[in-house]
């Protein structure tokens, strides 16, 4: 009789262990799922912020007084003065100290302005990182040539780098 009781209790304990085992497996699987979902969500938000930053920098360049063209001292939106862009590019390249000033505005990025018709291609600012994630936007701009007061069709290319 006592042997029977012992057997019964052993079976009961075995059952309880099995139930606990299943429970902990389910909890483990739930934790794995939650972790992967959380990580994906965080990564997605990081990329969205990165894209927003690219647009932000593009807007800053668009309205930079050092590049903006003007008529009778009235600045014109969506327009880049060719000679100003060239001058700014040379200024930043020849003055490393000034690059730090523009780093505070543009960070790790590369800004290029080019004409689709003529041989005009200027890298205004270049602070790139190798093997980094990048986000690029291209926007049409008017390129003003003060020599003959003409406006050409240009493109502003902004590429932002993330470590």
């Amino acid at each position: 009789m006592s042997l029977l009781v012992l057997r019964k209790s052993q079976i009961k304990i075995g059952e309880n262990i099995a139930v606990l085992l299943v429970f902990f497996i389910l909890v483990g699987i739930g934790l794995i799922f939650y972790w992967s979902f959380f990580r994906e969500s965080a990564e997605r938000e990081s990329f969205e912020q990165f894209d927003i930053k690219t647009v932000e920098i593009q807007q800053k360049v668009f309205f930079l007084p050092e590049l903006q063209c003007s008529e009778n001292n009235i600045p014109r939106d969506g327009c880049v003065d060719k000679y100003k862009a060239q001058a700014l590019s040379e200024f930043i390249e020849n003055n490393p100290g000034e690059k730090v000033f523009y780093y505070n505005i543009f960070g790790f990025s590369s800004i290029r302005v080019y004409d689709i018709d003529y041989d005009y291609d200027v890298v205004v600012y270049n602070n790139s990182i190798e093997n980094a994630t990048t986000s690029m936007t291209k926007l049409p701009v008017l390129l003003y040539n003060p020599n003959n007061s003409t406006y050409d069709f240009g493109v502003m290319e902004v590429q932002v780098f993330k470590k």
Partner: protein
Amino acid sequence: MGYTGKRNKKNKKSQMEVLGLVVIVLLISVALIFFITVSLKAKPSTTKVTFENKLLSTAMINVILGTTTSAACGYGEMRTAIIDMFEENNFCVPNSTSYVEERISEIFSKTLDEWQKDYVFLIYEEGREYSPLINITKAEKPLNVEASIYTLPSKGRNIMIRLDIVTR
């Protein structure tokens, strides 16, 4: 002995049943997790892409209008050539319509085509959307997106310039 045998058999049966239950629960859990993971996977944000294309189409129209034409139009503004399309149509050589169409096609081939964009570009008089003077299209199917529409006032009528852009 017979009774022990029967009891052992019963024990074995229960053990097998419990094992079976465990396997079923595990299978259901795995299937559920797989299903939830797939359904919650992020789809690409179409709002962001639509916004970018809207920004691009607005900027494209603004820049096209401000561009200086070639000697064929006496180095005037593209805006003037477009308005002339609906008037004397002689601002450019041979005529403003063909110059504007050729020039804009050239611009798009060097920009939107290279950037893998589909587009529909129309210039028409207000109220006559279905008979545009200029229609430059590069889209495999009709575009169902909000377009940028620019209005150019001209001698008692409005000239509409519309550009739809969609990323392929």
